[in-house]
Each structure stands twice: as structure tokens, then as C-alpha cells.
């Protein structure tokens, strides 16, 4: 039975390896059903709302509520 894992959305600039592995079936070849989840647009907040010591970030929000197991920081 395939293992499953959900990760938060990655962009090519820091997740090109993940995107290529997904598209070329490399996760599936390892028995891993990798799913990529994204926050709904209305939940995205801009970093422009933050300060250096209190930044506004969207990273980890899905993981925090149990909808993803990994995210990139």
C-alpha cells in the first residue's frame, strides 16, 4: 500500500526538485503518494503587513492545522 504525505505548496525557486519529482513520477516510483496543498487565496496574507521581528508569513499554516505534514522554510 502506498504511503501518503501532504506538503504545502512549493514554488520552483526553492522546490524545483520536488516539482520535477512529482511530475516525472519519482515519488510514485518510491511508493509515496505525495500531495501538494495550498492555502485558499482568501487566507493568504502579505509579508508587507509584517515587521522584521513580527513577520507575517503563510508558511506552515496548513501544517499547524493538521492539513500538511511538511512545509519549506
Amino acid at each position, binding site marked *: 500500500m502506498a504511503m501518503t504525505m501532504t506538503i504545502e505548496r512549493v514554488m520552483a525557486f*526553492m522546490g524545483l526538485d520536488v516539482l520535477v519529482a512529482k511530475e516525472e513520477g519519482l515519488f510514485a516510483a*518510491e511508493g509515496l503518494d505525495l500531495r501538494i496543498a495550498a492555502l485558499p487565496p482568501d487566507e493568504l496574507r502579505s509579508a508587507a503587513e509584517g515587521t522584521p521581528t513580527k513577520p507575517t508569513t503563510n508558511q*506552515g499554516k496548513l501544517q499547524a492545522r493538521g492539513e500538511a*505534514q*511538511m512545509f519549506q522554510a
Partner: protein
Amino acid sequence: MIVCGALVVPPTSTVYTPQELAHKLVALDYGNGTAYAGLQMLEGAMPREAVTTCAAATSPAERFAGLMRGDFEATVLQEPWITVAEQAGCRLVSTTFFHGTWVATRDVSAEAYAALLRAITRAVRRINADKRRYVSYFIRDWSGHPEVEALRPHDFNLGRIQLKEPGPIPENEARWAWEWMAGWGLLEGAFDVTTQINRKLEREANQLAAAVRAG
């Protein structure tokens, strides 16, 4: 994945070196790797009190637009927006590289993590064997943005596309990153590797993934 961050100024700027950005407004997307890379590039060129920043959007498209409008003197961009900026006549006054790091929940199994590592290792090898082919992903990420859609694979400087096979995080590098962030007031408390890195899971997964690395 290794990320390239570039400190970029608009075509009309009189700035050619990072130290010339002292006391000038640099837009950073606080809380993201590109912002930390920006601070590191700036503090390497001037005293910390001369580093002057403002909050900017996470989207490099918005930061590039703000740069071209003259909202600030410089910003940090990543690909494909570094290439977009170059095509628009902007100058890179500094570039650096940093790691994208995975953060996992406690319930990720060593087997699943190992499968992830094996697949990523194979992807890294494929990409490194033909980077020009795979830069199309950068364009695909930004469909609907004409500046990016106008790019062609040969426009990219492949030296900025760097991929490294995944492996354990060296403790000294994690400690240096923590202490550097604490030095800017971005983190509080002392670094404790046992609370930051699950070495048991990391070791087990990397051992399970080792066969593909040896191959």
C-alpha cells in the same frame, strides 16, 4: 534546494555596490529566506545601523513592480524574477545562496521521509544533468505574468540554478543561522539542537535513503 537571492536595483539607479545602499530603502519580505539573505548581503557591506529596510510583499512580482515604480531603492528577488529584472535593465549588486529547509510534523515516518529523499535525490540528478530543460518550471510557476511568460530557457543564467542532494543538517550551520537571527532580534533564546532537529528521524530516513545515494 539551494535558492539564489539577488539584491537588485532599477536601471536608473546610481547604486553599483551593496555599500552604496547604506541608509537607502531596501524592500524585504520579512519572515522569508529572501529577506534574511537580503540582510546578510547588506550587513556584509555596511554597519547594521546603516541597513534601512521596509516591509514588502512575499510575491517577487509585487516587489519587482515596486522597484520599477521607484517605491524603494532596491529589493531582493529570486528566480525567475532575477532574470525578468535583468531583461528589464536592472542591475544585480550582490547575489547569495541559501538553503530551503523542510519542516516536518512529528508524525512523519522514517519510511515516508526516506521515500521523499530518494525521489528528490533522483530529481536533483535529472535537473543537474539538463538545467536548461528544467528552467521551464520557473516560467510555468508564473503563468499569467507577461514578464515571465516572455522569458525563454536560454535567458536564464544556469549558475543561479543550484541543486544539492538532500542530507542531514550540519549542527554548526543550524546553530550559526539561529545565532545570526537572534543577533537581529528575530529569535529569542539559546539554540538547542534537540528541540530544532529530530536527529533520530533524520538519521533513520537518511540511512534508508542511502542506497539511492550510493547508486
